[in-house]
């Protein structure tokens, strides 16, 4: 069912929901951006619809609500491990289609990979209801259409943001009573059909080509350009890697916790082992590892999609202006070269 609701009415609905739900949405933090005069848009709890940033894409992805940058796994004393507690409320999360599609990748890793389900992800995931933010224009770094993640239908509610009002499509009947006073309209969300950027993901036909691609000189460029800051993977809608570390609160007390913190394959140390062995020493090797995971390895394993939803956040966040789409295009050229060389 479709409805038109003023912000005032939306806020009344939010008030009704607050007891049962935490409402998460992209929110603008003024002056918190990389440069002092820039803002940052990231996910946070909201209580009023006016707090939600509808006009611009968030700098950071929705995944942070379910798998925060840092979270406690256990609290311990000398001989006891106690699990951290999750919020008791359900989660209503406002997301664009790219972020909704990215949850699929998160679930693949956290709930399915290896036949193990991660309890910390699962207990959050089970609480989620999605409010899809209609997205029809996109931005200059987006290429969701190329990745097939411009559309989504697994939402409870979809919203189109207007001036001081929302048009909504309520799919989950459980939410329908909240809108019984609202004016009914015909509404189905629309989706972006064409981005400025169109990307063709190259096929890597076999292991021999893959092996040659790994040592192709195209990657060397990133030794000069990439500063291995990891901003791209932190901003990525689909990346899932983490570190596990123990912390002691205070040398004298016997209490501490085990924490999970977002990790990046782009940062030195990701592969360091005892005995000083390091598997990817250079920025070029790390870039190659990331790009191949996104556009080959993940799909080779799970067979369904590439591990990228075309949100363009990695490109936007890179301080060195490294574009993911330009990199994939270079890779496509390198693959063509390798195949041409082989058929000689």
């Amino acid at each position, binding site marked *: 069912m479709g409805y038109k609701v003023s912000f005032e009415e939306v806020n009344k609905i939010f008030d009704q929901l607050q007891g049962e739900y935490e409402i998460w949405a992209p929110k603008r933090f003024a002056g918190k951006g990389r440069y002092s005069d820039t803002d940052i848009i990231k996910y946070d709890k909201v209580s009023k619809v006016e707090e939600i940033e509808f006009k611009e894409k968030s700098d950071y992805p929705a995944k942070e609500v379910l798998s925060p940058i840092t979270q406690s796994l*256990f609290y311990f004393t000398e001989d006891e491990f106690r*699990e951290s507690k999750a919020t008791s409320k359900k989660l209503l999360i406002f997301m664009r289609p790219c972020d909704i599609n990215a949850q699929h990748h998160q679930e693949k890793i956290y709930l399915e990979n290896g036949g193990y389900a991660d309890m910390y992800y699962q207990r959050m995931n089970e609480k989620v209801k999605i409010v899809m933010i209609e997205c029809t224009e996109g931005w200059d770094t987006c290429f969701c259409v190329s990745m097939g993640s411009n559309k989504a239908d697994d939402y409870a509610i979809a919203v189109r943001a207007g001036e001081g009002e929302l048009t909504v499509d309520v799919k989950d009947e459980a939410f329908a009573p909240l809108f019984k006073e609202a004016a009914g309209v015909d509404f189905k969300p629309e989706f972006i059909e064409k981005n400025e950027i169109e990307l063709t993901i190259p096929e890597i036909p076999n292991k021999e080509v893959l092996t040659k691609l790994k040592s192709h000189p195209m990657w060397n460029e990133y030794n000069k350009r990439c500063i291995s800051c990891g901003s791209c993977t932190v901003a990525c809608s689909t990346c899932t890697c983490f570190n596990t570390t*123990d912390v002691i609160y205070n040398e004298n007390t016997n209490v*501490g916790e085990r924490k999970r913190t977002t990790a990046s394959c782009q940062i030195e140390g990701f592969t360091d082992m005892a005995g000083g062995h390091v598997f990817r020493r250079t920025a070029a090797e790390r870039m190659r590892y990331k790009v191949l995971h996104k556009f080959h390895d993940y799909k080779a394993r799970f067979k369904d999609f590439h591990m990228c939803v075309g949100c363009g956040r990695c490109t936007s966040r890179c301080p060195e202006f490294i574009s993911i789409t330009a990199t994939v295009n270079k890779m496509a050229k390198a693959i063509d070269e390798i195949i041409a060389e082989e058929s000689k």
Partner: protein
Amino acid sequence: MNNIVKPVPCKILEVKKESKLEYTFKVESDIKPAHGQFLQLSIPKIGEAPISVSAYGDGWIDFTIRSVGKVTDEIFTKGPGDVLFLRGAYGKGWPVEKFEGKHVVVITGGTGLAPVRSMLNKFYDEPDYTKSVTLITGFKNEEGIVFKNELEKWKDRFTTFYTLDAEKKEGWNTGFVTEFVSKVDWASFGDNYEVVIVGPPPMMKFTGIECGKCGVPDEKIWVSYERRMSCAVGKCGHCRIDEVYVCLEGPVFNYTQAKYLVD
């Protein structure tokens, strides 16, 4: 909800000093691992580390640990009666059934002997399980030798080449394990054999090449890989190479697959 990363407390039964830097910890546990699998050992407030099963029996598991950092150093301060936290067992171990009725060649470097120790003891205890066992084992120096009693014992039933990289020792060879690959009686095995290689990455690479020179096809070679691990259950991403997770599909790989795994 089942928490896959929650470890359980287990009592240390015995600690045996193998060498200056390597101790074997016998831990009370009902976990039934397979030969070549590993567990996550942890000490609250310090952290976790993946450690191979070096032996196991009814109600106990042995871990042979090299003290190299935060967690392993802390484990070294523990003794009988103290508690270690365990979760596992994880990964794919040695394809022991594939080795039945065959000539088995095991080549190890340093503590690479730990993840094959339980399998070697099985072969020792059940002499009819394999046609023959050849063991090439190398250590950097005399100080690094582990499982001294078993190395002696295995000589009775296995064809052995024990070697130190550069030092001389009575009854031992001098040189890298790679130098002994051609001394294996490959010709008498016909087609009925399998090869196991475990050790530091360069050792495995060059031993694989030597085996190739002796006519060993890739599909007969099995290796065990070590990678940085933070979860052991396919979540943290640290151990991934291409589409493969070492903690899930490894640590044991057939060489036809391992050869293509470029980090």
